[in-house]
């Protein structure tokens, strides 16, 4: 008989990267041009309602540094929001 013990922690396959930014609702198109074009990004969103304008990225391959580089390149502030 099989006995199945569920794991207490489930690893999400897609990495979630979280950043503090100054991207506001009016900037969405500018940011979308860069983020939509990256095939490694599964999903992204910005919480315009939060004071930290939190950018959330789901990706399997991107690193924090790559995201910061891309977003900074188009003139926005972007830093990792630490745990």
């Amino acid at each position: 008989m099989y006995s199945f013990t569920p794991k207490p922690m489930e690893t999400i396959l897609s990495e979630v990267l979280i950043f503090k930014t100054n991207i506001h609702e009016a900037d969405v198109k500018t940011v979308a041009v860069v983020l939509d074009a990256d095939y490694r990004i599964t999903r992204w969103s910005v919480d315009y309602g939060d004071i930290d304008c939190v950018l959330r990225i789901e990706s399997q391959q991107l690193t924090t540094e790559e995201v910061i580089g891309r977003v900074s390149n188009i003139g926005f502030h972007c830093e990792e929001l630490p745990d």
Partner: protein
Amino acid sequence: MNEHSFIFVPFIMRTRDENKEQAIRRKAIEMIVEEGFDGLSMQKLAKAAGVSPATIYIYFKDRDDLIMQVWMGEMKKMVDAILKNFDPEASFEEGMRIQWMNRAKFLMENPMSMHFMEQVKYSPYHNVSLTKMDSNFQEVMGRFVHNAIKRKELVKLPFEVYWSVAFAPLYQLVKTHISGRGLRGNPEKFELDEKTMNMTLKLVIKALKP
């Protein structure tokens, strides 16, 4: 962190922690019930749940997403509770008895959840929540009602009228029970027990007979 340190730690796998997610959901409900939707911010919620704002964003992309996901979670809990031991092929009276017991038990054990779901119902989130209703639940309930109508145990009514007669009395009794006191300044404690419930259910069944 120097500029090369990422070579050694390219990225840290963030993991889903069931306990943290549950704590976030529980605290969110508490804050919304106590302070309303406007009282909820990711920053405040993080503090209350004992996690960092970044942790909340692992699970939820913004406040609206959080509220909707929390609603779906509570709805699922309630639906599972209502359907426990419920057979849509059962007689109308028996099916109603099970549903009343299940609904009352869930709501009395989860008053925060009930309050939160009521708040959603009377907010702009309601329209979104309608698109996320559990279709299996609606199908099972529909089958139960149609069976009862076919067997001439239930009068045919517009859905809203049926629902109001069938369940609103129970919900009002539960609310009075949760408030802890009777109506009209009745100083005596009101408790919804099985006897009171059966007494009311009998009247409801009678009212719904063709």
